[in-house]
């Protein structure tokens, strides 16, 4: 492909098969949730704690912070097993995927010692505070700002579309610590905002499915001590960009509709028409190729490479696939639907509009791929 795009074949080493079996055994014992492969749909603090007991949160992090010092590929196996099973991963997902790695990279020793062990234990959960009422894809236009005060910062403004803020403890929040200047990417910082702090208000926003998953957050003179600033003040933009490869290349970008495909297969097995068989084969072919591309990127992450363009490409292709699955399947409905078929299909259709919005809109991703092609 083009220079700078690399999907070098990699495979998940067979030595990790035991881990995969262990995750499956663990999941087989789980009974108190209805499966949904959309990582943003199910959230259970109890489930996250049970997972933590197994050592499957923060599993790549240093042992000194409670991590498992396992490889990125082992984490990949755990996360894809959880998603395929439709486990309620929503509580710890962001902390494990993004906030923890961010702190490891930019956090102070005190921050790492304070937060990472609690994340690993499943005791604290994180949200992402990026979008604002007037700043969506144009993230650099944020207006939430903080003024210097004695010992810290005074925070004012509002964030929106903050998934899980109603049950999470902290949000890593991008704020302006200097007024916008000529370089619009300068003057931003990342704060760890305790969601229950004085002056923070969380207001739920119902989504089209009637669920309250995301929120608007209001900051009204919230005091943020210096100890909760991540990295260097002013370096926020670069730090946010460094999270993107983690955020965009993982299996949650193409497995959101997996339960639909699974229940479809269960439903048509033994009575499939040729059209249904071909559709099933087509959707599996796409899935297998996406998974291989995603494993290739996981392997690059393991080697310390930050493949941002590849990650954007996987998310764009994977999201398109997640949107395709329910739309294609509904046109060839099974004659004998499995008990869960209608529920998972309906849930997927209701959630589908979010697939191509969260974690970077389709339009932003296409722009990144275009840059990788040398068009921008």
């Amino acid at each position, binding site marked *: *492909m*083009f220079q700078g*795009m690399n*999907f*070098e*074949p990699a*495979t*998940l080493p067979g030595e990790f098969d035991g881990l*995969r079996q262990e995750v499956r055994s663990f999941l087989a014992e789980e009974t108190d949730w209805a499966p949904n492969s959309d990582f943003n749909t199910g959230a259970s603090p109890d489930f996250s704690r049970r997972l933590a007991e197994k050592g499957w949160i923060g599993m790549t992090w240093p042992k000194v912070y409670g991590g498992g010092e396992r490889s990125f590929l082992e984490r990949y196996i755990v996360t*894809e097993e959880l998603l*395929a*099973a439709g486990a309620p991963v929503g509580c710890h997902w962001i902390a494990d995927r993004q906030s923890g790695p961010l702190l490891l990279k930019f956090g102070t020793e005190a921050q790492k010692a304070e937060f990472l062990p609690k994340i690993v234990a499943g005791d604290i959960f994180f949200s992402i505070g990026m979008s604002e009422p007037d700043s969506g894809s144009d993230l650099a236009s944020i207006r939430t700002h903080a003024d210097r005060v004695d010992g810290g910062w005074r925070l004012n403004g509002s964030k929106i579309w903050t998934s899980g803020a109603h049950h999470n403890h902290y949000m890593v929040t991008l704020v302006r610590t200097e007024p916008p200047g000529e370089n619009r990417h300068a003057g931003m910082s990342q704060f760890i905002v305790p969601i229950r702090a004085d002056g923070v208000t969380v207001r739920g926003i119902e989504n089209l499915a009637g669920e309250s998953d995301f929120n608007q957050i209001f900051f009204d003179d919230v005091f943020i001590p210096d100890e909760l600033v991540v990295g260097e003040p002013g370096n926020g933009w670069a730090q946010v960009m460094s999270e993107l490869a983690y955020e965009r290349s993982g299996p949650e970008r193409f497995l959101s509709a*997996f339960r639909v*495909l*699974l229940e479809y*297969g*269960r439903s*048509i*097995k*033994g009575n*499939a028409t*040729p059209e*249904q*068989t*071909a*559709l*099933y*084969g*087509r959707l*599996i*072919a*796409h*899935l*297998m*190729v*996406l*998974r*291989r*591309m995603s*494993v*290739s990127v996981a392997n690059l992450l393991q080697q310390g490479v930050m493949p941002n363009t590849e990650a954007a*490409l996987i998310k*764009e*292709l994977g999201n*398109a696939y997640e949107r395709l699955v329910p739309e294609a399947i509904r046109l060839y409905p099974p004659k004998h639907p499995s008990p869960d078929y209608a529920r998972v299909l309906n849930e997927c259709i209701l959630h589908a509009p979010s697939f191509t919005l969260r974690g970077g809109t389709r*339009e932003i*991703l*296409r*722009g990144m*791929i*275009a840059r*990788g*092609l*040398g*068009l*921008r």
Partner: protein
Amino acid sequence: MASESQQLIVESSSRLLADHVSPALIESVEAGHFAEGLWSRLVEQGLLLLGLDESAGGYGGTFGDQLALLRQMGRYAVPAPVAETLLANHLRALLGAEGLTLPSAVVDSSRLTGRDGSFSGMLEDIPWGPFLQRVLVAADTSSGTVWIEMPVGEIENRVSSLAGEPTATLRFDQVEPLRVLGPFIEQHQTELLHRGAAMHASLMAGALEQSLEIAVGYVLERNQFGQPLAKFQAIQHQLAVMATHVAASTRSVDQLQMRDEAPSDLDVAIAKARVGEAVGLSTDTAHQVMGAMGYTREHHLNYLTRRLWVWRDRFGHETVWQQRIGEYFLSANQADLWMQITELS
């Protein structure tokens, strides 16, 4: 992705193809003239015997090496029966015969009938028919079905494929075979189908990569409304989407090349189905962003596009392979989908 030997093949074949494949050559072939010069170079470099063991008259190498070569051939829209000849050599090797560098093809869509040592019948719509010197074909005889190697004699109904490949019906009227290769075994037929599909997936992946590069190069140079087309978001986004499908195609084909042994039937099915599906969107996009220029005969994009349109139908189009994939995953003895997927990796 590519092993060291594959990288060498890519480098040496790229040089050869860059030197010897031109629009003029492709036009000449489409007008009915065999690409003698190109073919001699391929013979000299031993590329037509690639992947054959020394015992079969080859120079060694793997099927993955062949696929790496064909991906380059795809990039250059090579106007000669290279995949067909490599496949014929594989059948020869399977049946214990030496490989040949003569333009050859395997035909198993119809059979000849043998009587008293000579064979008759019609083989219809054979790509490259007028250029072939040998045809390996199944034939029914009183003592069973055999593979035979036939000289190409009478040619009828010369037509052209979408890609302008000279195509013809080959007629045999009590013709003696050059050799009886051995008994017709269904397993060989299945193997040939999969090899042919893998080869065409590789050809397509190369042509898709090249089409994307051409389209990107064009929009960077072409100015409209006072700036390069590349600056328009509408153009950027179309090419970005095309790039996702081209990347999926190359990754599907990498999977076939990455091992020394032949790829699994399922991986071949996935590659042929996935790459084939990428062709429609990719050719649409490349032509759309290039405007009328890409629609001309003069611009070389058309040589890639027309071949892509042919290759996606050869050795089974998308639906054929999608059904096989579906059947594999629906078969009664198979476990739940996720277990199947992770076991395959």
